[in-house]
């Protein structure tokens, strides 16, 4: 019996601590102080202000928001804020614009991510090479990332303006169009214009992340590949991409979440119009909030969180690296 107790104490941290305390020895080689109720109270007291702020400004809004999703909570009429069960969720799905919003969100995420990844990768590969004024090029390419999304939206709204915009002017001068295109006024072209703006804006992030990852690849790998006579495409697919696979996966995951939650540019550029044709889920949620229907907006917010959580879990499972692959 005593043998079993001793072996347990040896194999677990708590057991070791318990044994030490029993022997009256200080923990952690004599540097760690004994944990007492009084010390616990001291720690709790120092942590209390931060805990209160986090509770008030993070957890309370989260809980209140979650609660609102199941209540009739309209700022325009607060005389009845009773529980309504799943009505707000049903209202979200029953909205005639919901199908358009959902489709737009898919187009917005996929149509942004794929070109951003491809162009960002190409830029990173180009910037990895040593050439004159490389620093200047890097600075110029990374510059857009420093500007706010809303501002980019306003900038592109003017670029795509049908009457005075540079885009139409250039296309007309190049002889590609006869008369100005109402880019943002026509539902067929508004989403295209918004995507072009977002691709331009987001390429930078991919370029930064991929360039950082590329710089971690040892030159010896490329030298060995060159000695073996590997072609450029083979080097790309068998050395470069596998080596930075984790970075690529995490960058794509982060960007999907960010783009999904990125209403700024659309608000600055089209405000979700015309006729809701450029609304995505998050701009739609803001629009509902502006209408004062906090219940329905909260329901939509919960749906967004759930969708992104499910996506993140599946994406990480699908892209996780198997042990020993890189070795």
């Amino acid at each position, binding site marked *: 019996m005593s043998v079993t107790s001793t072996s347990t104490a040896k194999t677990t941290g708590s057991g070791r601590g318990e044994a030490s305390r029993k022997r009256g020895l200080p923990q952690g080689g004599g540097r760690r102080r004994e944990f007492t109720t009084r010390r616990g109270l*001291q720690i709790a007291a120092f942590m*209390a202000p931060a805990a*209160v702020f986090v509770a008030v400004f993070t957890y309370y809004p989260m809980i209140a928001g979650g609660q609102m999703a199941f209540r009739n909570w309209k700022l325009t*009429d607060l005389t009845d804020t009773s529980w309504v069960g799943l009505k707000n969720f049903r209202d979200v799905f029953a909205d005639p614009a919901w199908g358009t919003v959902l489709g737009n969100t898919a187009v917005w995420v996929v149509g942004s991510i794929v070109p951003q990844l491809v162009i960002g990768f190409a830029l990173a590969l180009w910037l990895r090479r040593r050439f004159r004024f490389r620093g200047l090029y890097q600075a110029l390419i990374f510059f857009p990332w420093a500007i706010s999304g809303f501002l980019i939206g306003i900038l592109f709204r003017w670029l795509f303006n*049908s*009457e005075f915009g540079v885009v139409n002017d250039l296309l007309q001068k190049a002889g590609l169009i006869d008369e100005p295109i109402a880019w943002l006024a026509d539902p067929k072209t508004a989403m295209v214009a918004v995507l072009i703006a977002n691709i331009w804006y987001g390429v930078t992030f991919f370029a930064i992340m991929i360039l950082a990852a590329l710089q971690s690849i040892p030159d010896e790998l490329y030298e060995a590949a060159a000695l073996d006579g590997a072609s450029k495409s083979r080097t790309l697919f068998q050395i470069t991409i596998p080596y930075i696979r984790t970075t690529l996966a995490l960058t794509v995951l982060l960007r999907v979440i960010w783009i999904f939650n990125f209403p700024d540019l659309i608000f600055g550029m089209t405000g979700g119009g015309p*006729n809701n044709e450029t609304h995505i889920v998050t701009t739609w949620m803001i629009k509902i909030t502006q*209408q*004062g229907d906090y219940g329905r907006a909260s329901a939509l917010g919960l749906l967004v969180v759930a969708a992104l959580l499910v996506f993140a879990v599946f994406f990480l499972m699908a892209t996780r690296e198997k042990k020993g692959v890189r070795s």
Partner: protein
Amino acid sequence: MRRRTAALALGTAAAMVLTGCSTMSPEASGTVTLNMVESLTNPTRTDLLKDLIADFEQQNPKIKVNLVSPPTEQADQKLQQMLQSGSGVDVLEVRDITVGPWSNNGWLYDMKKDLDGWKGWEAMTENAVNASKDAKGRTYFVPYGFYGLSLFYRKDLIKEAGFSKPPATWAELVEQASAVHDPAKRRYGYAFRGGANSNSNATAAIEAYLADQVDPANGFKLKSGRTIFSAPEAQDAMENYLELFKQASPKSSVSWGYPEMVEAFSNGSTAFLLQDPEVIATVSESKSISKGQWGTAPLVAGPGGKTVQPLATAGWGVAKGSGHKAEAVKLVEFLSQGEASTTFTKKNSLVPILKSATSDPFYRTGPWSSYVTMTEQPDTYLVVTQPRGVTWWAEWQQKADADVQKLILGKTTPKKLLAGWDAYWTEKWQQEQ
């Protein structure tokens, strides 16, 4: 030592929490501080309000006013959140479109008893007195001025197009705007409102076509009791309005709201604009068009030669949660009478609330004269009250704006749109009974 450390930690925590939660205590000197929140904020207007507040403070040394000026786009929402919390607001800007839901939620103070016997009423126009009372006679706000539509037009462009005077009817507006419209030269006929609040101009057109039939007490109702959207003339109005977009408006105006419309006229690219009087100040400052190039004309009429002035208004009210109601009402009174009111309406380009303004040379000349013309001819320019105070007004606006955009994008027809609007209001009024 440990006890001291624990006491210090608990003390720090308590102090931080308490300073975060405490409210300002009333000043020992007896001075009262009022929090005043404006809604239609812009920097010039805020400076103007600060000057008026300084005068008020000088006359009332025991009252200080703290002016809060949230950005216009978020102001109403921020105000709602502040009002919902029940404190932090004493005096606030209340609009005809917010008074319904806010009073319904119990956020506004009825000033009726406080303002009984107030001399300010005698100096006010009938419109202003009427606008300050709701259907049950309660006074949730005192208007500071009115916003009413008039037609801004380019004198030089219509002359070039062969017209000697500005359009007097909606049909003439389509004719003149189409004649001026030439996208190849980047010259456009009409600054169309297709985005935010597009429903307001569409209903103005409908009301003009039905002028004599509209119930003065409810601009969306015919004297027969049916909605204005059910009348055959409403369809004519919307067909004409659609032509105005197709033949004479820039394509991008499908999403234009207030700033884009005003910009299009101010930068000289558009010949006509239907807007409120505060635009006079903006256009006057334009460097693209000179004073001699533009003017204003009365609101265009329907085929019967008459029109309806859909006056919009806003004013100052007191929050129900205010702890200093007497002082707050005093500030509302100060802003709504005499020099303060005149200064505010003139510098903010509003249709005035005081009777004395009609004899003021400021309003009788230049771009303001069209408003005087409309005021002096009440049989041609009928004043009606739109049902802006109903709790569902915001919901209506969103629905109607979306429908107008669908119409001009060709996704619905005037007939379907009007049938939908008729059904909407009929149902709402039935629910109300």
